[in-house]
């Protein structure tokens, strides 16, 4: 019986994870290293990587800053609507990214107030970087907040008060006491944000228009290559993203060990 369950788990992992990954690796290198390198150094692929990196970078910075501020406000301040906002944080997990993208199109479309406003200012939101960043932010914004809010509540305010009685200014309290206490949680949230930003597809597809060499991210490039029967290209880019994800997973594990290690003491 025991063996049956262990076998089931192996099969489950095999079909879901190990098989596809192994097959992807085999397929990619079946074509040889030269094909792999020529595919990932193609201008379209390089542009896709760069765009994904740019979006991920912007989203990461915004999430770290606003996510930390949001978590601090939600964990430490009492104000009307706090419960409502806390409840809304999980919404992006429940809503399909495609719907998120569609809502952005409705909001910034050429006939809307915002669309007209930005159009008049000469700023292109839809089918350009701003909408793609907004769409990715929508999908990733809960990670940092959800990680930090409970952490800040557990830590409490006593050590911050202690720092104040010792003469620390508010900024010193944050940098010398609060931030060190939440740093691994922040790393954890940031890592999840990066992983999700790199992999985001649905919302970005809807708002980007998937324009070659302009708004085509790495994931959109995989999709496009696949649709165009360029399997080698799809494989190569997919494998590159997969390797990146593995690296991120390693960081994630490290951060998780640190956070649980801290919580236990």
């Amino acid at each position, binding site marked *: 019986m025991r063996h049956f369950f262990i076998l089931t788990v192996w099969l489950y992992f095999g079909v879901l994870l190990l098989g596809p990954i192994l097959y992807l690796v085999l397929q990619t290198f079946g074509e040889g290293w030269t094909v792999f390198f020529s595919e990932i150094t193609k201008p379209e692929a390089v542009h896709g990587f760069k765009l994904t990196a740019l979006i991920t970078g912007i989203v990461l910075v915004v999430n770290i800053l606003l996510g930390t501020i949001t978590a601090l406000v939600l964990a430490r301040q009492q104000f009307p609507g706090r419960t409502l906002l806390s409840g809304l944080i999980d919404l992006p997990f429940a809503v399909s990214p495609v719907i998120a993208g569609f809502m952005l199109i409705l909001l910034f479309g050429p006939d809307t107030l915002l669309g007209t406003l930005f159009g008049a200012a000469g700023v292109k939101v839809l089918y350009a970087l701003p909408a793609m960043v907004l769409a990715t932010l929508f999908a990733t914004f809960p990670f940092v907040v959800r990680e930090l809010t409970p952490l800040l509540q557990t830590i409490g305010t006593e050590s911050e008060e202690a720092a104040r009685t010792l*003469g620390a200014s508010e900024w010193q309290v944050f940098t*010398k006491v609060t931030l060190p206490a939440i740093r691994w949680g922040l790393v954890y949230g940031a890592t999840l944000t990066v992983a999700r930003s790199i992999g985001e597809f649905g919302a970005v597809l809807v708002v980007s228009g998937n324009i070659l060499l302009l708004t085509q991210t790495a994931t959109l490039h995989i999709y496009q290559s696949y649709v165009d029967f360029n399997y080698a290209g799809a494989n190569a880019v997919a494998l590159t993203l997969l390797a990146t994800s593995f690296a991120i997973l390693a960081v994630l594990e490290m951060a998780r060990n640190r956070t649980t290690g801290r919580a236990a003491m």
Partner: protein
Amino acid sequence: MKIEIRNLSKKFGAVQAVTDVSFSVNEGELLALLGPSGSGKTTVLRMIAGLETPTAGEILINGQRVNDVSIQDRNIGFVFQHYALFKHLTVFGNVAFGLKIRRWIRPKTEERVHELLTLMGLEGLGSRYPHQLSGGQRQRVAIARALAPRPSVLLLDEPFGAVDAKVRQELREWLIRLHDDLNVTSLFVTHDQEEAMEVSNRIIVFSKGRLEQIGSPAEVYEDPATEFVARFIGSMNIVEGTVRRGKVEAGPLEFPTPAIPDGTSLRIGFRPYYVKVSEDPSHFRQQARLRHVYFLGVAYRLEIETAEGLLLRSRMNKEEFRQCRFQAGQLVSYAVTHYRILPQEGVTGYALETIPLAGP
């Protein structure tokens, strides 16, 4: 430094946490704020530190009004109940924190930290992290950290509440010794009356946000100013009755109440050691049944019940106890030798002192 509190009040929303509290702490004094949880004592301490803003009233440190001085500039050492150590810093880093903020130069910082670690018995632990220390050690690090920048006042909020009984006793002795050595004006909050009596020169008793009494440990014990203090400090038997023909009758007991008009309802209190109990049922005039004997380590407590159902507590030292052969449930005789008329609002003109009662 001297601390002066004038008519201090604090409201949290609709909750009145502290009401019109005034007192002063003398230079170099070690004073306890004693009261049950929720009595406002911690709020008073936090207002002195600047961690809470008073709704009304004034706080003066060394004659200077500090209401509008920020926490950072009050130069106060604060010790929290749960240590509040910086977990990511070593013991050295924790103690040096306030000095680094004040930009002390490195050699001076190191010298001061080592001086405090030695003083607090923490030599050799400088490179440990808080989670590698015992509860007692953590609290000593917290005290060292608070003392490092030479604060003018040391405030301790239930400093020994989070450690076990044995360590608590050790820490109390540390605090007393420390205070003798440094003589820094110190104010500490506790709900443990024994702790307050043992550690402090004077005690301030709080109840429901109000100051009930200020006095030496002996004063608050022997001469409680209010019924609350009488009940809270030490153990006390309390009976209720109405004055008739110059005395209060409570079951089998009679207490003369000179100078109080008939019809006044009063509470009479007497400490357990004023209740004498004999195994000989005819030794004293009153009889009762022995319900329980409690061993307290230094003494015994006896609980007796009169025929009328009145429960009384008696305290007996070991020698006295050994001379009798008490058995739970047996008939005993007893006498109340002293009593007090407990202070009551609206009733005046009676002696606020322990009154001896005529012999058996």
